[in-house]
């Protein structure tokens, strides 16, 4: 009787969290899944007009703008995550070397991550202007700036968005990887050094293997976040010029909150969920194959 009472109390205590979870996560997911099979455009009707099966999903894959958005999302996520990881690892290794003023540098380093993405977007919008600081500095490094501006040319606009994302989130990689590096026993590294191992051998054979779990988790998280990035695109380019910086998230926003095509937007949302789920699960299987979590 006491045991039952205990279980009842436990369920009662977690009930509010469960209700919250259902209301804020499962209900919207269910709602969007249901309406992804409906023809519902608020521009022509305040209520759904009928069941269309997989029609919205098929329309997505027939829509050149959607396909372009998918390609841009993948390009941006892979590019940004790879660069953020590489730079973040470099910064973490430097900070791990116990430099003078390391604490101050660490504190300053985290600052870009604390800036709201919208604010970062506005900041970089001014820097990318034709007479902005970045446009002024790039020719010094041998990079020519298009006459239309960095954000005005299809060949540079996506890079500009990637750079903004890299500026903001590289410190995140650096801080997490630094924490990982500092958890590796110093004696192992010392022993390797005494045995004559070079920096790169230490990195490849000791540091990276010990950081595997951390690296995979952080890459996974950042890939998902970059795949879903919306705010800096909205502020910087609104998906232009043309559709050269239009990503799936921007497409979703546009279809849902500009065109009010609720059915189609719901289908895009679920396609994004499925794509991310496939990528992340494939990544987990590959990355953690044979390893215990």
């Amino acid at each position, binding site marked *: 009787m006491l045991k039952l009472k205990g279980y009842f109390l436990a369920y009662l205590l977690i009930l509010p969290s469960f209700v919250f979870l259902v209301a804020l996560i499962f209900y919207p997911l269910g709602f969007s899944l249901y309406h992804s099979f409906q023809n519902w*455009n608020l*521009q022509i009707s305040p209520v759904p007009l009928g069941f269309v099966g997989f029609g919205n999903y098929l329309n997505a894959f027939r829509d050149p703008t959607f396909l372009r958005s998918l390609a841009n999302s993948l390009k941006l996520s892979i590019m940004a995550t790879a660069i953020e990881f590489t730079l973040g690892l470099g910064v973490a290794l430097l900070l791990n070397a116990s430099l003078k003023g390391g604490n101050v540098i660490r504190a300053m380093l985290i600052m870009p991550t604390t800036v709201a993405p919208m604010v970062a977007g506005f900041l970089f919008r001014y820097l990318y202007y034709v007479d902005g600081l970045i446009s002024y500095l790039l020719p010094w490094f041998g990079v020519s700036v298009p006459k*239309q501006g960095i954000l005005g040319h*299809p060949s540079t606009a996506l890079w500009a968005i990637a750079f903004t994302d890299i500026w903001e989130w590289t410190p995140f990689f650096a801080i997490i990887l630094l924490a990982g590096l500092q958890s590796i026993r110093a004696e192992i590294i010392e022993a390797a050094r005494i045995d004559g191992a070079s920096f790169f051998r230490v990195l490849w054979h000791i540091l990276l293997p010990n950081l595997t779990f951390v690296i995979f988790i952080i890459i996974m998280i950042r890939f998902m976040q970059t795949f879903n990035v919306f705010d800096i695109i909205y502020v910087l380019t609104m998906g232009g010029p043309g559709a*050269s910086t239009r990503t799936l998230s921007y497409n979703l926003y546009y279809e849902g909150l500009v065109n*009010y095509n609720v059915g189609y937007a719901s289908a895009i949302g679920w396609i994004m969920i499925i794509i991310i789920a496939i990528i992340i699960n494939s990544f987990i299987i590959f990355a953690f194959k044979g390893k215990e979590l």
Partner: protein
Amino acid sequence: MNNRVRKAGVFVVTAAVVSTLLFGGTLCQAQKTTINVLSVQDPFWFALEKVVPQYEKETGVKVNLQGLAYDAMHAKLITSFIGKTKGLDVITIDQMWLSQYAENRWIVPLTSYIKADREEVRMNEFVPEAIHTMSEWRGDIYAMPIAPYGQFVMYRTDLLDQTGMQAPPTEPAAWWTWDKYMEYVEKFDQLGQDIYGTVIVGAQPVPIVHMYTQLAVSKGVRWFKQFPEAPWDFTPTINTAKNVEALKYYKKLYEHSPEESINYIWYDAGTAFSKKDIGIFFWWSPYGYLVRQAGYMVEEPSPNAGKYGVALLPFEPGVPQVYSLGGWTLGIPAYSVYKEEAWDFIKWATSGRIQKMMALTSPHQFNDFAREKLFTDEDIIEYYPWLSTQLYTLKLGNGKITRPPIPIYSTLEGFYGLQLNSALAGLKSPEVALADAETQFNLILKQNFYLPYGAASYDDTLESVEKLIQELSP
């Protein structure tokens, strides 16, 4: 005991008196009606904000005036309609949204309200073209114009003197064609390295459509086979030789514009004209006063203030001239609980007296009238000397063919703007861009039951609106 009871009694009475004094005022205040007005932050909002205290003084009704950016406001409106939120009493409606809101019954028709108050509303004072484009849908008035916009040309007088060319006309002139306009642009461009012939708006998806469609409609381009005259036929007609020519012309204008104008939204073009050296451009009529200032709705004058003139748009020989007509109206959401109070506010805000007050309030950044008599008011002309030109553009305005306000307009505009921007950016040729746009139009129109159009058409002509205005006038 008696003492204690007496003390308690005194305490209770004192507490009651004090509470009444403290909170009674608040309660009375709380019972005062408050209406919520949601508006876009276009220039008229700033002018309205300054005169709203006058309304509160005159009527005792409190006005909670909230301004939002375009996209944010539209999103808030739609979510409030879907959620049947009762918190909005007066809303601003863009010209292209009226049909969607009316057909979904999200706003109430105002025809019966106008009939009841015809002496006060005075419909005969309104420019019929503004009512036709902005307020009327299927024979009913759904909203009252607070700020109609036409389009005209603005040019730098000091740069014009350097070219030696004659001033663009303020009245119709046979020589002022689009070819001639391009000559002016090229001449301005040759004046110096930092001088641009013109400036365009290139950002997709919406801003570019606003500017481009003025050029296109003037060159004879139409979106559909037949609209708004009955029977409606929404077969798209944007992939035509005329439109290809118009888009090539727009590309040529871009070649004489600041290169970054491919990303320019509405005010960016105005800022460029007010701060840089731009010879000539055409844009919405509020820019006639906006370019006087160094920034949007700031007091600081622009370096080019006093150095520009206003003229009519050029025309295409053999094509009847049409001006784009857009702007904002005030409507009442269906779920408002203060409809009568909302209507009173709308009548007040769109009245001649208040519109004049808004125009004369410093810093004189509003002259978007719908009542014809205000265009000849000497007090107002003193601050906005180009009013006769502006009135002319309204009287030749037809927003229903420039940007057809059918319920799925926003979706079509999105595709159109994307393709126009792609052509401008060199990603596609004009021919391919327009062909792609028309393909998308066909798909969207078919999916949304516009091709073929099975519902009843309405013969939506200026003549039918003039008749309606007459019926509603005193």
